[in-house]
């Protein structure tokens, strides 16, 4: 036991040293940009995974929080002339507040309805950004360029690193994570053991929204330009989803691996193989399908044999109970005395 703990410490320390020194060692600004972008996507993927992998709710409006952060930061920074750090902090706060406000009604929805409702919310907010004056509408907003790659690499590292550590402590070390997993496994059953799923889910949503908002704020300053489709578009969420699913849901390391893997592939593909752009769609399509068929728990799940991924997806996509809950165990199948037609059951539908 102490032996593996020691090994883990070495790995973590090594990783930390690597991450901290990477920006210093690398002179190539493009690699630094990739590094920053990879960190950004790790942050978005793990915060999405907090809701998807740990509670089993597929949030297709995660990009909204990113966008809230980006726009709030930009507006405060460029129009109200607040310092960047303060604008950024408020941006994160606004994202968290948004999560708090929509979380309560939305988290009552289940499966595909939750997915669609969050998607609709994201679309509505994007339309709002397109028609408001303060956001610049479709023209988007520019921020004064501050093109210091090291600054952004370290800010992103600090932000995503802190998010990672906080989530790791809360999800893997503190009771919070186990409680969320219990909700994922059986939401109604979790009531009986004293959990309040509504409250826990809301806490988790806020916890996933705040870092996403902060990342959005940093993104805006880093890229120097935002418009509704670049920060509120489906792409932000979709990419985080693909990364998390590919890497392995319900873990923190999985989405991170997925993010690095996907981003590396994507960047190199577009950089050097963009003549075959048609293939990109096909490769992506086949890869996603193959991943779910052959690696239902993602890369990390396949390595560690953790099955969180498929459990989370099963819940998140459950459209009706019949399709989602097959007899998992022979004895359980045998005990099911619940008739398919229940004359006395008026609570559902």
């Amino acid at each position, binding site marked *: 036991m102490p032996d593996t703990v020691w090994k883990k410490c070495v790995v973590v320390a090594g990783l930390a040293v690597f991450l901290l020194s990477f920006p210093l060692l690398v002179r190539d600004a493009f690699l630094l940009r990739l590094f920053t972008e990879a960190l950004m996507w790790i942050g978005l993927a793990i915060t999405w995974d907090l809701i998807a992998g740990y509670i089993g709710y597929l949030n297709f409006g995660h990009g909204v929080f990113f966008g809230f952060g980006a726009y709030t930061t930009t507006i405060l920074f460029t129009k109200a002339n607040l310092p960047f750090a303060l604008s950024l902090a408020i941006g994160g706060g606004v994202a968290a507040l948004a999560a708090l406000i929509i979380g309560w009604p939305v988290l009552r929805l289940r499966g595909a309805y939750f997915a669609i409702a969050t998607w609709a919310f994201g679309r509505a907010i994007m339309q709002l950004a397109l028609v408001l004056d303060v956001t610049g509408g479709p023209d988007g907003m520019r921020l004064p360029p501050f093109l210091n790659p090291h600054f952004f690499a370290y800010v992103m590292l600090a932000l995503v690193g802190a998010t990672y550590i906080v989530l790791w402590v809360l999800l893997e070390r503190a009771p919070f994570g186990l409680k969320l997993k219990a909700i994922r496994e059986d939401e109604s059953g979790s009531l009986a053991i004293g959990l309040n799923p509504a409250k826990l889910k809301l806490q988790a949503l806020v916890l996933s929204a705040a870092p996403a908002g902060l990342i959005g704020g940093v993104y805006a300053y880093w890229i120097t330009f935002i418009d509704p489709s670049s920060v509120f578009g489906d792409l932000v969420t979709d990419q985080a989803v693909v990364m998390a699913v590919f890497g392995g849901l319900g873990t923190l390391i999985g989405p991170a691996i997925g993010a690095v893997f996907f981003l590396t592939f994507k960047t190199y593909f577009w950089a050097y193989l963009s003549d075959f752009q048609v293939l990109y769609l096909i490769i992506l399509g086949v890869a996603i399908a193959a991943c779910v068929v052959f690696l239902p728990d993602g890369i990390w799940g396949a390595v560690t044999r953790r099955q969180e991924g498929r459990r989370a997806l099963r819940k998140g996509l459950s459209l009706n109970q019949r399709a989602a809950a097959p007899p998992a165990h022979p004895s359980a199948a045998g005990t*099911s005395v619940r*008739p398919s037609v229940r004359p006395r059951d008026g609570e559902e539908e």
Partner: protein
Amino acid sequence: MSTLLKVEGIDVFYGPAQALWGVSFEVAKGQLVSLVGTNGAGKTTTLRAICGLIEAKAGRIAWDGREISGLPVHEIMDLGVSLVPEGRQLFPKMTVEENLTIGSYLRRTKANRNRNLDWVYELFPRLSERRRQLAETMSGGEQQMLAIGRALMQEPKFLILDEPSLGLSPVLVQDIFRIIKDFHDRGLTTLLVEQNVSQTLQLVDYAYVIENGRIIMEGKGRDLADNPKVKEAYLGF
């Protein structure tokens, strides 16, 4: 008496977990045979295997001397097998009449649809009164009648009933048992699966006792009913 259904040493798995271990039994033409056992013993699984709803990994199932394991469900049904499944498994959003009508979906029964409908309504006047009602709105007993009626619409040569008494009031249970006996008297081959062991064993010609996926005992119904081992393990009180 010739054998109608012969099950020989079937193994069935749910994923990696084995549910049936070399289950063998047979039913002769015109017989009323029962498969008894506790919850989770493997009764329903056995029936599902016979009907082709789940594949048997080993062993064979023969119908009238012909191997039927591996055939799709609808072809097995076409041979004349009818299952009244556990928990009825009606079509909840269909009316009573539609539930019965689909019983005669098979080509060989389609021609007799109206005659059979009349017959089932005569047999269960309750259903006749409620022919336009949705199945899900009916009481448990009515649903059970409908499930049996639906199976009868298939003009079965071999009727399988899975826990027909489940969830019914005692009066209704007596009705159901009376109907089963009645069919038996008319010469219909029947396989009855029941938890209500004492009453079932009184009724049937022959019975098999299944436990943990294995047949552990068999014999004439009344012999088993008197067997103290059976009593101790399954009759409770």
